[in-house]
């Protein structure tokens, strides 16, 4: 880590026990790809940017619409009509000019996923549908990089951290995708789950704490309950079943 400015910017996290300049350097050297720049992606990208993750690629093909603004806190009225990923890049650079932010405005498909998501230290799931999440999952398993999963609906959320070969993959957890829908959601739900995903990414990179692995966090904001479901790898999983691992 270099410079008095960095010491000031990150000073309050440098003094967290187990973090220090070494942890900050790990964040600076890290490259993270965030798939989706909606409700979850807004929160995740903001907190990874201000924490000092050195390179963030944010992928989203959508444009900002008025109906996004109840929950997608990267954007305001003046951003309506702009490409989400490009607006996000500008906002994140303004939040932390010391990091590299890359906007990608393509749609993630089976055909381009390895090109768009490959080569990063972590893949962060901020998608709005399960089929595209399965694509992220395949890349994560194929490349042996962690996938940080989160999803929301209404006041609810789910989160887990997937380490290929060690934890269940997303296909083990969700063998079947529910029917597509216009998802009801209030902004505080992705705020909670996005913060949890960002927390996991930071812990993973810095190497502190205990990850949300082999557990699905079930958040019910309406009744303010957090529950955990114990997860196991599926022996016959078509995506990760071939990997050796501690849970087999």
């Amino acid at each position, binding site marked *: 880590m270099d410079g008095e400015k960095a010491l000031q910017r990150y000073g309050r996290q440098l003094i967290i026990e187990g973090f220090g300049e070494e942890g900050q350097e790990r964040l600076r050297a890290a490259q993270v790809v965030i798939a*989706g720049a*909606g*409700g*979850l*992606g807004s929160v995740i990208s903001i907190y990874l940017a201000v924490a000092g993750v050195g390179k963030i690629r944010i992928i989203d093909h959508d444009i900002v619409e008025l109906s996004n603004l109840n929950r997608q806190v990267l954007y305001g009225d003046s951003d309506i009509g702009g490409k989400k990923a490009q607006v996000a890049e500008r906002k994140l650079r303004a939040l932390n000019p010391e990091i590299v932010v890359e906007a990608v405005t393509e749609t993630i498909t089976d055909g381009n996923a390895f090109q768009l998501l490959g080569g990063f230290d972590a893949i962060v*799931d*901020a*998608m*709005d*549908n*399960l089929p595209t*999440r399965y694509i992220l999952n395949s890349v994560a398993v194929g490349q042996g990089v962690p996938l940080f999963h*989160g*999803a*929301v*609906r209404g006041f*609810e*959320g*789910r989160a887990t951290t997937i380490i290929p070969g060690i934890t*269940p993959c997303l296909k083990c*957890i*969700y063998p*079947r*995708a*529910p*029917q597509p829908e216009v*998802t*009801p*959601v209030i902004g505080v739900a*992705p705020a909670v789950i996005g913060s949890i995903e960002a927390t996991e990414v930071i812990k993973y990179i810095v190497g502190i704490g205990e990850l949300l692995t082999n557990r*699905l966090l*079930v958040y*019910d904001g*309406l*009744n303010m309950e957090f*529950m*955990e*479901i*114990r*997860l*196991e790898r*599926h*022996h016959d999983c078509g995506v990760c079943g071939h990997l050796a691992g501690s849970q087999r």
Partner: protein
Amino acid sequence: MSVKVKLHPYLRKFAGGESVVEVSGHTVAECLGDLEAKFPGMKQQLLDEQGKLRSFYDICVNLQSSQTDPLSEPVKDGDELLIITVIAGG
């Protein structure tokens, strides 16, 4: 044989607003049968026309994910079922 079922908030309106109800059965499927007997309409919410669990729902026994079909999971006296939804928004 008594098994507690913690209902997803969406399902509570079919159980008179209760969040936890008691049922009996030796498998999750039998417990859902008893749930339907006590709260008619619940089965239609949870199962499709073929009697399979709808993809919108998942059921765990004692906060443990199922390795196979949740409906075939055995249960015993004192077990707890949790019915949650599979969500995908972002």
